[in-house]
Every structure is written in structure tokens, then in C-alpha cells.
């Protein structure tokens, strides 16, 4: 691997971190009347997996971030918006109560922002039907190399922004903080000392805990449109879409109709898309509103640091570092934002937005 990427720590199974035997029993109990997602190991990564009796136990806490974020539970990579037949259309049933265990501070914070986006204005029904019935259990994180939540403001949670949170700062003495009424019910049988009401949760500090000037970034992003830094990134970017697929705050989709051999039967699917793909902004007739790769990269970051801020007053990047980790050429927000902050307003030589 190139020198641009730091070493990836060992997989969580061999990390020698605390394994909580009492946790398994509690999770098993929760799974009895909930659809429970826990984290499991797959091919050297951590993933969210639906709990089943023969599921591997959760080990090696605290852990690293998952490969796919929790969005996959509420906005599946592919789902039918409805099925159709000669009898008309029918929406698929709404899933029952879901509990997700093992979210870090940044993941919980990002999940809330995604939920807010989906609820905003005209709500996204399938997402909200799943999300509004769900309960999120946080866990202390081990800082993953390449993560930077302190820079994006997704490094803390207030009560109400989590349902339960399992503190593992002192692995010998785990504590469970209660953040909501729904969480309180689940905590009743928890095998840990309960802190009710729980307080604010703060992610472990990084070496250089400096917040980006998030308020100023929208304007900076706007000004940097067309700047040469995007062209430079475009010479490296493979356009593979890995970054958007793993991002907890990327959620774009496309739709497609699928039919069976009898064309009266079929479904309208929605599937994850990626704004990094050439066809993303192409319209019938062939005109493409974001033909250049450099514009597509700009677009991705402008969503995170301009549009989301303008709409919700929060950064659309949690600072999890997943996109950087899974980018084959090592493009990530830290490098990009450093560049954006350097583009001087209206600098003609940089070719920015007038």
C-alpha cells in the first residue's frame, strides 16, 4: 500500500479489548422481541448484521467503524417502493421494532442527521416507517485511524440524541446511560450499572482537536467551485463510488421498474446511487449537468459542507473517515477541506465561482 495511508489496526477480534460475556445474554433477550442488529466481523471489517441464534458474539469492544454504516438498516441498498400486479399497487409491509447495538458517537450523530433529512419537508415514508420505530444503543469507540469527528462537530451527543449508551471508558466498569424513555424500558434488564438520566456523551479526543470553521465553509465551498484543486483531485479519483456507498450521510438513490415474465407483475425498486458516477446528472437527450469528474467531486463535498449546513446547521460529514479508508487512491475530507480553506475568495487564477 502507498505511503499516503496509515496502517490499519488489527481486526477487532484479535484486539484483546474487553469482551463482555454478560452482554450476549442481554442482546439475546432484546432479540426475542425486536429485530436486532449487532456488529460482526467479516473479511477483516466490522459490519452490522441481523442477530440470529448462531450469530458470532460481539467481541473486542470498543471497536472500529463498520464497513457499511447503519443507513443500510433503514435505507436498504435495494428495496421495492411497491409491488404491482393486475390488482394494482401495494406497498411492502412496514418492519417491526428495530434495535441497533454498537453505534459510536459519530454514527449516532450522523444517523440523527440522516433521519432529520428524511423527515424534512415531505418525509420519506419507507425510511421513516423503519427509523421512527427504532432504538439506538451507542457504545464507546476506539478511535479508528483516519477519523476526525472533532473537526465536524459530530463528537458529542446530548440525552435524547441516543436511547442508550454503553460507556466503556473503564472497560472493567461498564455503565449504561439512559437517553430516552424508550431506552429506559430496555435498560430494565441490562446487566450493567444504569445511569438514569444519562448525561452528555463525548467521543474520545483526538491529538489535534480543532474544529473546522463550519459556519464559513458554505461560502468557501461556493467560492471554490471550478478551482484547480478539484481538477487535481479528478486526475486521481477513479470515480468508483466507494466513498459514497460507505458514507453514513450519503443517501442518494435511483429508481427502476422490474417486471417478471408476465409484465403485469413486478416492482418499482429504489437502489443506492452515487453522485460520483458520470450518469448521475445526465438527462434524457444526453445532456449532462455534471460532465466533469472535478465537478462531481466538488458536488459531493458541497453537499456535505454547504447544503447540509444551509439546511440543518450541521456538517453533512460525521468525520468517520470511512470514505478515506475505502478510497483506493486515498482521497478524504481532511485533505479536501484543507484545500478548500486555502482557496482565496474570488481568486481568478484558482478559477473559483465568481
Amino acid at each position, binding site marked *: 500500500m502507498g505511503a499516503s495511508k496509515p496502517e490499519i489496526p488489527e481486526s477487532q477480534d484479535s484486539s484483546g479489548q474487553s469482551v463482555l460475556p454478560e452482554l450476549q445474554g442481554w442482546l439475546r433477550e432484546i432479540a426475542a422481541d425486536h429485530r436486532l442488529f449487532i456488529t460482526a466481523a467479516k473479511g477483516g471489517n466490522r459490519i452490522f448484521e441481523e442477530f440470529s441464534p448462531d450469530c458470532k458474539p460481539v467481541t473486542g469492544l470498543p471497536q472500529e467503524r463498520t464497513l457499511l454504516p447503519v443507513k443500510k438498516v433503514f435505507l436498504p441498498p435495494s428495496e421495492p417502493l411497491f409491488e404491482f400486479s393486475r390488482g394494482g399497487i401495494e406497498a411492502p409491509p412496514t418492519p417491526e421494532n428495530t434495535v441497533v447495538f454498537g453505534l459510536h458517537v459519530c454514527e449516532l450523530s450522523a444517523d440523527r442527521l440522516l433521519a432529520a433529512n428524511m423527515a424534512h419537508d415531505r418525509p420519506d415514508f419507507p425510511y421513516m416507517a423503519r427509523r421512527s420505530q427504532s432504538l439506538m444503543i451507542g457504545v464507546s469507540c476506539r478511535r479508528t485511524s483516519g477519523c476526525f469527528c472533532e473537526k465536524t462537530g459530530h463528537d458529542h451527543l446530548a440525552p435524547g440524541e441516543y436511547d442508550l449508551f454503553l460507556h466503556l471508558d473503564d472497560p472493567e466498569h461498564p455503565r449504561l446511560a439512559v437517553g430516552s424513555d424508550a431506552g429506559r424500558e430496555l435498560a430494565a434488564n441490562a446487566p450493567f450499572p444504569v445511569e438514569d438520566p444519562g448525561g452528555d456523551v463525548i467521543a474520545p479526543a483526538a491529538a489535534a482537536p480543532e474544529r473546522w470553521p463550519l459556519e464559513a465553509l458554505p461560502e468557501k465551498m461556493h467560492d471554490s467551485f471550478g478551482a484547480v484543486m478539484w481538477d487535481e483531485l479528478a486526475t486521481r479519483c477513479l470515480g468508483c463510488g*466507494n466513498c459514497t456507498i460507505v458514507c453514513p450521510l450519503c443517501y442518494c438513490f435511483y429508481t427502476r*421498474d422490474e417486471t417478471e415474465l408476465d409484465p403485469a407483475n413486478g416492482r418499482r425498486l429504489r437502489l443506492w446511487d452515487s453522485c460520483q*458516477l458520470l450518469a448521475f446528472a445526465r438527462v434524457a437527450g444526453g445532456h449532462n449537468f455534471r460532465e466533469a469528474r472535478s465537478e462531481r467531486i466538488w458536488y459531493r463535498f458541497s453537499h456535505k459542507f454547504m447544503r447540509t449546513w444551509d439546511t440543518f446547521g450541521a456538517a453533512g460529514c460525521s468525520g468517520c473517515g470511512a470514505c478515506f479508508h475505502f478510497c483506493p487512491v486515498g482521497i478524504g475530507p481532511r485533505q479536501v477541506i484543507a484545500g478548500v480553506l486555502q482557496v482565496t475568495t474570488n481568486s481568478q487564477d484558482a478559477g473559483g465561482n465568481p
Partner: protein
Amino acid sequence: MKQGPGPEPEGRIDISKNPGGKLRVGIFPLTSDAGCQLEFLNLQDDLLALAKAVDILHFPMARAFNVDGPFDVVFVDGVPARRDELEILREVRRNTKVLASLGSCSSFGGVPAAQRFHDLGDLKKYVYRGMEDLDTLEILPISNYVRVDLQLRGCPASKWEIMETLTALIAGRLPQLKTYPQCIECKIKENRCLLIEGQPCLGPITRAGCGVVCPSVGVPCDGCRGPTEEPNLTSAVEILLRGTTYPDLIRKFQKFCSLSPEYQEMFDRWRETQ
């Protein structure tokens, strides 16, 4: 619209099917390994239902009586490697509304197209000990000879794409073949990334549609489905070279889709350094 066919075909594709009747389907083999035709037979669960839903009018591998048209859609498997196969191909084009290349051989020349990296005379001498009069044709994709409306790529072609093509044409829409890179599906499957581990995986510059079968079993993608729209080859080569040597990488690109236009510049540069 967006995940539709890659390069815009010239002119409209006539997706209207034979009015009121069943979709008339032909499967025409040219020189090939027949693996793609087998993928048709491998539709097994759907095969009997398919045989009822469409009229398979031409499929010499499976049927004794075969009709020469007219068709709503014809799948051409393989490449023309002899002069008389060109006649078949042109005849087929005249008799069908939609013509689909089935697999990387008909779409790109496939593995046999690697003949172009050798002297054809030498090759024939080597394999057939001097029988130079053997009727051979330079291996070229069928689009070199006739208009191709749909490319079903892959070695072998994917069953999913075959079914999507048939169900779409039955329903009266253009099939939505994927144009995005393998990595999207690979990530969705939560595979470990071989490229990041240092293996020469062509996933980021190869078109999805096979179900990322190779990376899913720990084998780097060999690029059998050909390049995505606008692949960033320069950057990709740089990354790929972390896990392989330049000659091995070039040979990898020469394996399945050596005739795809996107690769030619790279081959030219390689030839110059030889």
C-alpha cells in the same frame, strides 16, 4: 434513464414487440465456447416458464427445428472467425428488431481477440503446422460489422442481464444494464477490498452486472465485462501497480476485452516501450 445503456446507440432501438404476440427470440452462435448460450440453459428455474412466455425460434444448441426470423430480439454469442459467419451475422441483423451481443466475445472480441498481439501467420503455423489456407478472419467485435443495440457483456454473460433484457422487452422498455463500476456492488456486499489490500483488482474501472462474483470469493476482478463509462486508467494503473508488475498488468487488460477502445492508448504506449 441514467443507469441505461452506456454509449448512446446511434438511432432509436425498436423495442416494440410483435403486436399481440409473444416475444420472438433467436440465439445465434458464432465461434465461441458456448458458455453464454449455456447461461441461457442455466436459467433452469425460469427456463420452462421462459419457454412458455416467449417464442424461442432459433437456438440450434437446444432445438432441432430452427427458424431464420423475423425476430424481436436476437442474441449473438461469439465472434465471426470465418468469412461465412459474417453472412449469418448480416442476415440476422436484417431479420431482427433488437440485436444484442451476448458476452464479451461478441461485445469485445473476448479472449480470442488476443490474436492481435501476435502475427496471425505465425499463430496459424504454430497451431496448425503451416495450414495457412485455413479460413480465418481477424477477430473483431460484431459491432464492427453490424449495428448492435444492446451489449450484454461478461465472460460469461450474466444471467441477470439476460433475464432483464427479456423481461424488459416483453414489458416494452429498454433493459437497464448497469454502467457503474463493480466497487458499488462490492461495497454493498460488504466484501473486503482487495485493491486496498494490494491486489490488482480491476473493479473500479470495470462495469458491474456480474454480481462482483470474483472479489466476492477473494479473487481480484479480471475486467471481463470491460471498462466503465470514462474509466480513469492513468490513476488506476498507478494504484494497480502496487500489487503487480507492469507487464502482468498489461496482460491482464489484454485478457478479455483487449479491443475496448478505452484500453488502446495504454497498449500503444506499452508497445512503444517494448
